[in-house]
């Protein structure tokens, strides 16, 4: 499980520098689908980027199965990053590589080469996301939803224990959003991978998340099961995100 303890992130060295994250503590159980929701600028992307250390937290701990990962560097950091694969809003595929080569990239990153077995596994993963017939296409020949499915296959090629989704459906139309969300739910159910979903859409949270944390100005303002938070939102941020306030007030 991932235990985030008193995590702070500020930009700039001054003690009064603005906090993107301010004393955030969250526990994420194995097998959970955890939603982290908030408005733009609430710090949710910073939080998820701290989890895989694309950004270094200023203070606090991130314990993964009891081990603090915030100090990891070099080979240990790279091995850890494969345990927490990430998918991005704009997919982050390599435009000059085929779909198959993109999915094989984690193997290349891990071992410096891609074996026939790796390629076979990558094709299985592409089959899982319904993109096996496009293995030789280039990302520009695919729609956004298809590109995100390829990105999911690439994330799975890391054989991760956690998948971080940073606004993974924000650039997609509703139909593609549903396809991608169903895929993430299916992967969670079948493999037990923990999924952490960053979004500003309550619709996404409602569809696939079990638990949810609401962030506002870098602080956790509400947390609980999706059913509870949707039934009776306590914080103003949750009410606004659920559109339970008079928009014209």
């Amino acid at each position, binding site marked *: 499980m991932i235990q985030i303890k008193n995590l702070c992130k500020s930009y700039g060295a001054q003690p009064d520098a603005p906090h993107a994250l301010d004393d955030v503590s969250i526990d994420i159980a194995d097998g959970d689908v955890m939603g982290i929701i908030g408005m733009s600028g609430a710090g949710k992307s910073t939080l998820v980027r701290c989890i895989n250390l694309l950004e270094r937290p200023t203070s606090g701990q991130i314990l993964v199965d009891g081990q603090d990962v915030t100090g990891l560097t070099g080979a240990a950091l790279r*091995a850890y990053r494969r345990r927490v694969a990430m998918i991005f809003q704009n997919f982050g*595929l390599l*435009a000059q590589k085929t779909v198959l080569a993109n999915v094989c990239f984690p193997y290349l*990153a891990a071992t410096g080469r891609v074996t026939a077995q790796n390629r076979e596994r990558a094709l299985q993963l592409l089959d899982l996301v319904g993109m096996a017939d496009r293995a030789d296409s280039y990302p520009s020949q695919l729609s956004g939803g298809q590109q995100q499915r390829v990105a999911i296959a690439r994330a799975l090629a890391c054989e991760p224990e956690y998948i971080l989704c940073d606004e993974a459906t924000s650039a997609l139309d509703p139909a593609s959003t549903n396809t991608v969300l169903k895929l993430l739910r299916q992967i969670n159910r079948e493999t037990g991978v923990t999924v952490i979903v960053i979004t500003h859409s309550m619709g996404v949270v409602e569809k696939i998340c079990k638990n949810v944390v609401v962030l506002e100005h870098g602080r956790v303002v509400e947390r609980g099961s999706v059913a509870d938070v949707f039934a009776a939102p306590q914080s103003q941020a949750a009410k606004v995100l659920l559109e339970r306030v008079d928009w014209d007030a």
Partner: protein
Amino acid sequence: MPSLSEFFAEYGELLLQGTGETLVMLFVPTLISYVLGIALGVVLYLTAPGSLRPVPALNAVLGWAVNICRSFPFIVLMVSIIPLTRLIMGTGSGILGTIPPLVLSATPFIARMVEQSLAEVPHESVEAVEACGASVPRVVFSALLPEALPSLVRGVAVVLIAVLGYTAIAGAVGAGGLGDIAVRYGYYRYQSDVMIAAVVILVVIVQLIQSACDLLARRVDHRSNS
């Protein structure tokens, strides 16, 4: 008015030799410069603030060095480093004498072009590759450079055409080549026809470089469906 065949009978060999010299001065130093320039460009990219391996002090020093080299007009650079050229090549003139100044001039130019091409690779693609657990050398060689390839190829055309201009200047101080022919015959002897022939050959070389690089860039670019 002499006919075209008479003109070529008299000057054909001269122009052919000049073209050969120009091509040697163009490609040999550019090739050396690309080896150095890609390395320098990658280091400039990686050490920039906010990049993969930020080392602001090194980045600033390299940046200044590049800017200083690029501040020299080529003819000034060439004459000012003649002692160094003699030390390296054993001669300060001729085609050999042009290689050090051309390399010194082209390398920082190429480094900036490479840095710019790498910076155009979408940030998210680079982060996604990092998130797969790739080391920095892996990111550079398996993601950044291949992703930047079409842009790098287009950069080759810009660099070659700029270096072609430098070779003409080098020619003017005794290195031979088409620039030398144009100045000697056209300027000192008022033989405009020889100068025009030299210019036409230069124009053709530029067109060929640009067309070849454009074609190659399109061939290696998989970002559009065409």
